[in-house]
């Protein structure tokens, strides 16, 4: 077992040094940190960057990089609000032009990906650079089902991973995110998610998506989908509630050509009967709660879905869009307790996942289906805006 020593004394000079690029490495496992430093060494000249980190440098590891130690924290599966504050402070102290934030598992990012992320900010003067990961067909499903389509519909942003854990930031973008993070009460800093894409759109900053290939995504310490969905979706809903005046304005999403390479659909159909059974159970028991949130038309369509066989199960894209919009409206209106609301959404999400797996198993590429879902969200945005303004009536 490698012993973790504090950062060597000679690196403390880096606190007074300046560099165009500051790399902020969040807390991660020792091996991951070593791998990340090795990749940084391979990507950038040692004198051109400063690495600011919450990790202890292993004793047997030598690096020419200038390292600024920060107070150590426990590794998390996401970027927390305090990370943005620390990153912005580092950037300010070292007079950086760009800040690269690398989350847990960043050792799986190739040197080329790191260079692309940094160069987009340094040379192309982009304020926010978000990576586009190549992930397995049935990975990142909450992102595919809710985060991406909803962010795209609301903010006309085509960023595929709005809750990315690696980011390239200009100094003004970092300062804005730090300002948002500082408004978060200290006791909830480690639980609050920030939405950089939404902030960039709100500030009118430029943002770009960079293809970085495959990356191992860290998973939450609590693997229960109930808590993850409630945390992530609740956070996005709250952010949308705070920025309602912004996203209600009509916007046109820019066209982005994504690589045609499709990850192959790998299994997952074994889980479909279980998820469909969970949906059926919820249909039988949660009608009373759903009827407070969903329109009668949606309820009828859900009942029709519930009688489908597991192998034939599909969740229509427009129905899913309408469901998410109705839950967002109910979240805003506090129709029922917000914890209950997000809990009641879980069986519907599992139903979407079951339908998505069936669609991909039938030969449709996963990305094509996800794009179709996102397009359905965009098409139904007028319904969201109308109900947001006049929430007392269901239009259909």
């Amino acid at each position: 077992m490698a012993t973790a020593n504090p950062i060597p004394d000679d690196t403390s000079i880096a606190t007074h040094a300046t560099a165009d690029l500051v790399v902020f490495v969040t807390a991660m496992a020792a091996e991951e940190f070593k791998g990340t430093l090795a990749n940084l060494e391979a990507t950038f000249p040692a004198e051109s960057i400063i690495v600011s980190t919450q990790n202890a440098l292993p004793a047997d590891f030598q690096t020419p990089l200038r390292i600024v130690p920060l107070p150590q924290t426990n590794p998390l599966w996401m970027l927390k609000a305090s990370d943005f504050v620390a990153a912005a402070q580092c950037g300010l102290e070292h007079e950086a032009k760009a800040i690269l934030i690398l989350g847990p598992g960043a050792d799986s990012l190739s040197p080329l990906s790191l260079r692309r992320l940094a160069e987009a900010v340094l040379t192309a003067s982009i304020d926010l650079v978000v990576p586009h990961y190549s992930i397995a067909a049935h990975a990142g499903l909450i992102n595919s089902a809710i985060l991406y389509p909803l962010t795209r519909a609301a903010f006309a942003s085509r960023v595929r991973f709005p809750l990315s854990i690696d980011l390239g930031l200009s100094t003004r973008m970092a300062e804005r995110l730090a300002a948002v993070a500082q408004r978060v009460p200290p006791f909830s800093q480690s639980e609050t998610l920030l939405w950089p894409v939404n902030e960039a759109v709100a500030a009118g900053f430029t943002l770009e998506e960079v293809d970085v290939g495959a990356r191992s995504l860290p998973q939450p310490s609590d693997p229960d989908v109930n808590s993850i969905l409630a945390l992530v979706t609740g956070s996005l809903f709250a952010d949308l509630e705070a920025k309602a005046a912004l996203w209600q304005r009509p916007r046109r999403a820019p066209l982005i050509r994504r690589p045609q390479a499709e990850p192959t659909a790998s299994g997952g159909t074994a889980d479909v009967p279980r998820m469909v059974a969970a949906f059926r159970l919820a249909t039988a028991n949660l009608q009373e709660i759903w009827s407070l949130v969903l329109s009668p038309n949606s309820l009828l369509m859900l009942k029709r879905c519930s009688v489908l066989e597991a192998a034939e199960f599909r969740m229509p894209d427009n129905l899913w869009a309408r469901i998410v919009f109705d839950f967002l409206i109910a979240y805003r209106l506090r129709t029922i307790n917000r914890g209950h609301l997000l809990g009641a959404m879980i069986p519907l999400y599992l139903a979407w996942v079951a339908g998505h797996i069936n669609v991909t198993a039938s030969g449709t590429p996963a990305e094509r289906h996800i794009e179709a879902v996102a397009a359905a969200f965009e098409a139904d945005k007028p319904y969201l805006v109308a109900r947001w303004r006049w929430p007392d009536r269901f239009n259909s």
Partner: protein
Amino acid sequence: MQTLIANAAQQASQNISGIPAYSEDVSIWHQMSNALHQSIYRVLTLLIAVLPGILAFFVALVVFTVAGAAISSILRRTLTWIKLDLRIARKGGTDWSPSTSPTDIIARASFWICVVLGLIIGVSAFDTSYATGTALPISLLPYLTHAVGAALLLIAGIIIARFLARSVLISAVNAQLQYSRFLSLGVKWLVLVLTAAMVLDHLQVGGNVVELAFGILFGGIVLTLSLAVGLGSRDLVSRSLESRVEHTGERMHIPDEPANTSSSIRHF
């Protein structure tokens, strides 16, 4: 001898006829009338004593409610005119829903503050006037205050019961328990039974019978559930405990994959 008997009989008949036939009836009616008069007098005296208080209560409530409505309306118009919501939204970057806008909150708060103030002043006036009538024994008014407390208890109990029932229902459905509705109903009725017992106790109705009945009922339900869980889910509980013990040492690490999904599905 016969003359003696005849004289005695005559005297007796004279005596009987000499007593007024309605004297007893008059006495009973008199007593009843007196009792009724005294009762009416007592009630009227009490009413006269507390009536100004009741009137004062309603007058204070109505006056302050009207004043509250007026203040609320003025505030709402003023704040809308100065565009307070827009200013706050610009400053804080927050959009407000119509029911939670700062203007609406301030207007509603001012209205309800006035209503509560009227209520306090009214109760105070009523209390003062009632204190003058306490010499007259009547148990209805103290009972009314208990009834108000009991009503509040009942409302709180119903709200808590609904909240807990919903929590249990959603959690059970997400845990894919087939008897989710049964569990939810069980929790709801447990809380409602507890509330009913508290309400009856607060009203001092039933005395020990209610406590005893509640104890038996509540204990019975808990025992039934314990037996059901203990006998029906013995294997499940033991497996769960075993797996917890086994995985205690692994909790410090971030797992690569969620435990409750297959290897090919990742929700995040």
